[in-house]
């Protein structure tokens, strides 16, 4: 645990005080944490010098757990309590989990999201992921001997709203402030874009342990723009292991029925696969309960066994290029991400398709975490001179159910976010006073083929003849890609809205309870922690407002200035006190007092952006 460092309120109010912000690649197979140190992004190693943390959590009993390499080492001996590839389960119901019967641990169907049965009880994938995130958080705190201001966490471009929300919840459970969720390929592009100063259209081919993403990005003048994304959220290096394991088992005539045998088989397949990336042949050997398999395998044989998987990735590459309306010749370079892209067959397939060798000069395992760290550093306000701006897109279309189980798309796929889009609907019965809204996500036309995100009802519509009501449904997607839906009857003004949380529905109260129960706070005093955070937040707010007042003092009327100054004094006084709730309330009052000022500053910023351009183009 890092030492607690509390800056005294009022002390060293330097707006350029450095905040430690980290980038986390929360992967299916392994996870990493990186940070910008002395202007350079680097991955942070653990005490043993290891950068990769296997995404594995083993529950030993109700209290104890192992995380990472320690957990993985016990996987063969205790497969049922060793949770690997938990990312595949995030925000997923049992019906969504591909190959659930192949998993070495037991899944339990629960509303909205599956749970895993362990000796420590039923664990939600959010809780398991939080263990991994907390481990990385502690690693970062130890590295810097300081508190972490916030984190940028990466998710596959294909993650839908429920999966993104689950990732955010896991971070909160781990005691991390999420500055932003960003798409993994986008993070890779950030790492390459800044390090190599490359401009043009790029393809990012990311074959990780459990997911495949292909993204087409345009990089120019500090702006990363995602043109199109595609892929397969259930295809990755694990599938190559499984295909090899299945083939070797079939060839041997043996059976592997126990969970332990299956775990051993997969481990042997993985080792063999990794050797074949380095050499032309390798041995596959495993001792199962029914007998021994020991066989030499050539790279060509391995490639034949797994050719269908590689072909599936290339199919997705073709589709996403078509989505972006581009030819292979338009692509200036291809970035490879993910440990699985070390397989020579992947490099050849990608190189042949695009007619050029892919970029591989950054470590494919680290590139996503490095990009996230650069973005985190920027968001924490450490890089004021930087002009990095990340413009992302909605990965999957969002819409609502209409008559006959059809989907009416409201926000199309690949729309730049943040965005708000609206559509008008009406009643279909005379005197109808309520309208049920079903929010779905996906590209298919039938509701049954899309993912259900949320349901809510607009009530209190005044009785009218069918078709007379005008109900405007507005979808708002924020910069993290999270959705809010609002429905409003235009004539009467009745309104209903919902923040789309996945239907497993962790309420804020539940999260607070889980937080209290969790490892992240078990050692510390909850109240002390809350007080510390409230003071830090108050200090940051005052700093931000002071620097805004300095920059745009002329926008403030004397009376307004007096109100703000008074609110600052009140807050500074309560920050000396011991009550977190009072500090938070006073922070809120101060924030409200500056809202009009902030609005005027924003208008000035926009006008400035335009006038600058006008002069430049005149």
């Amino acid at each position, binding site marked *: 645990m890092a030492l607690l460092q509390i800056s005294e309120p009022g002390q060293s109010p330097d707006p350029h005080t450095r905040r430690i912000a980290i980038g986390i690649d929360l992967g299916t197979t392994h996870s990493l944490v990186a940070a910008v140190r002395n202007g350079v992004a680097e991955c942070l190693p653990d005490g043993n010098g290891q950068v990769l943390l296997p995404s594995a959590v083993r529950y030993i009993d109700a209290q104890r757990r192992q995380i990472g390499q320690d957990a993985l080492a016990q996987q063969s001996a205790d497969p049922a309590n060793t949770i690997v590839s938990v990312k595949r389960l995030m925000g997923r119901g049992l019906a969504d989990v591909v190959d659930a019967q192949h998993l070495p641990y037991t899944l339990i169907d629960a509303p909205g999201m599956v749970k895993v049965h362990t000796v420590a009880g039923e664990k939600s994938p959010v809780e398991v992921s939080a263990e991994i995130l907390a481990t990385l958080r502690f690693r970062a705190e130890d590295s810097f001997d300081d508190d972490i201001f916030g984190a940028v966490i990466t998710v596959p471009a294909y993650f839908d709203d429920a999966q993104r929300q689950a990732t955010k919840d896991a971070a909160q459970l781990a005691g991390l402030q999420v500055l932003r969720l960003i798409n993994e390929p986008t993070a890779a592009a950030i790492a390459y874009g800044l390090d190599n100063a490359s401009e043009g259209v790029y393809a990012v081919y990311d074959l990780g342990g459990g997911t495949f993403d292909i993204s087409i990005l345009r990089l120019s003048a500090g702006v990363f723009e995602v043109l199109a994304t595609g892929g397969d959220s259930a295809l990755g290096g694990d599938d190559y292991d499984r295909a090899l394991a299945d083939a070797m088992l079939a060839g041997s005539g043996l059976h592997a029925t126990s969970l332990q045998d299956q775990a051993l088989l997969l481990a042997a397949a993985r080792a063999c696969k990794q050797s074949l990336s380095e050499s032309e042949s390798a041995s596959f050997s495993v001792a199962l309960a029914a007998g021994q398999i020991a066989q030499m395998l050539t790279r060509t044989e391995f490639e034949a066994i797994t050719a269908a998987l590689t072909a599936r990735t290339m199919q997705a590459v073709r589709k996403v290029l078509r989505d972006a309306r581009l030819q292979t010749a338009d692509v200036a370079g291809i970035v490879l991400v993910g440990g699985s892209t070390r397989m020579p067959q992947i490099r050849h397939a990608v190189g042949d398709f695009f007619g050029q060798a892919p970029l591989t000069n950054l470590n494919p395992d680290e590139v996503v975490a490095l990009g996230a760290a650069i973005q985190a550093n920027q968001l924490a306000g450490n890089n004021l001179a930087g002009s990095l701006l990340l413009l992302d897109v909605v990965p999957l279309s969002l819409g609502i159910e209409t008559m006959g189980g059809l989907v009416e798309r409201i926000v199309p796929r690949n729309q730049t976010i943040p965005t*708000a889009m609206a559509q008008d609907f009406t009643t279909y019965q005379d005197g109808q006073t309520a309208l049920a809204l079903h929010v779905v996500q996906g590209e298919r036309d039938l509701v049954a083929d899309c993912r259900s995100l949320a349901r809510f009802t607009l009530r209190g519509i005044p009785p009218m003849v069918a078709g007379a009501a005008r109900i405007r449904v507005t979808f708002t997607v924020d*910069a993290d890609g999270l959705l809010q839906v609002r429905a409003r009857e235009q004539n009467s003004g009745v309104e209903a809205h919902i923040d789309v949380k996945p239907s497993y529905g962790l309420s804020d109260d539940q999260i607070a309870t889980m937080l209290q129960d969790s490892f992240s706070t078990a050692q510390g005093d909850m109240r002390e922690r809350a007080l510390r955070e409230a003071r830090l937040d108050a200090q940051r707010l005052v700093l931000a407002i002071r620097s805004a007042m300095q920059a745009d003092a002329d926008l403030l009327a004397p009376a307004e200035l007096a109100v703000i100054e008074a609110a600052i004094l009140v807050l500074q006084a309560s920050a000396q006190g011991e009550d977190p709730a009072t500090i938070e309330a006073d922070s809120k009052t101060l*924030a409200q007092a500056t809202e009009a000022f902030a609005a005027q500053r924003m208008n000035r910023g*926009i006008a400035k952006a335009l006038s600058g351009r006008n002069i430049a183009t005149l």
Partner: protein
Amino acid sequence: MNLQSTDFELFGLPTQFAQAPSLLQERWKALQAQAHPDNFAAQGSAAQRLAMQWSVRINEAYQRLKNPLQRAAYLCELHGAPIQAHSNTAMAPEFLMQQIEWREALDEAATEPALDALAASVDLAQSTLLARCAELLDTQGDYAAAVPVVRSLLFIDKFRHDLDARFDALR
């Protein structure tokens, strides 16, 4: 300048159909560089909410301005000649005949070259109508006359979408 300004005012561009895509994109990025919520991640929720409103408004305007069809429809609306795509579907008979022919050709096209040929004739019709739009909107200032042309373009846009779906199905 406020959230209610027109797309053209917001982007500091003349209120007309002809627009240079590169200039549009440049303005969009300049505006987002000012307003994107990421710039305010460290400044509290009020500032972020405000930034979000601006950022959303800028994206909305950009989507509308960069698409020639939407831009034309928006110009008509600004000048008191709404398109009313849903309530008014009256079309010229010869245009409807052509639509029927295209639909039949789409149903019969079984190969990529056949679809390519169809796509070429659709694209030609589209660019002809867009040129007509530019003439009516920018040179003659006859917004009411541009409305039926925009409606025809909406039909073509929908057909082009179905055509792309067929390309996907073939591959």
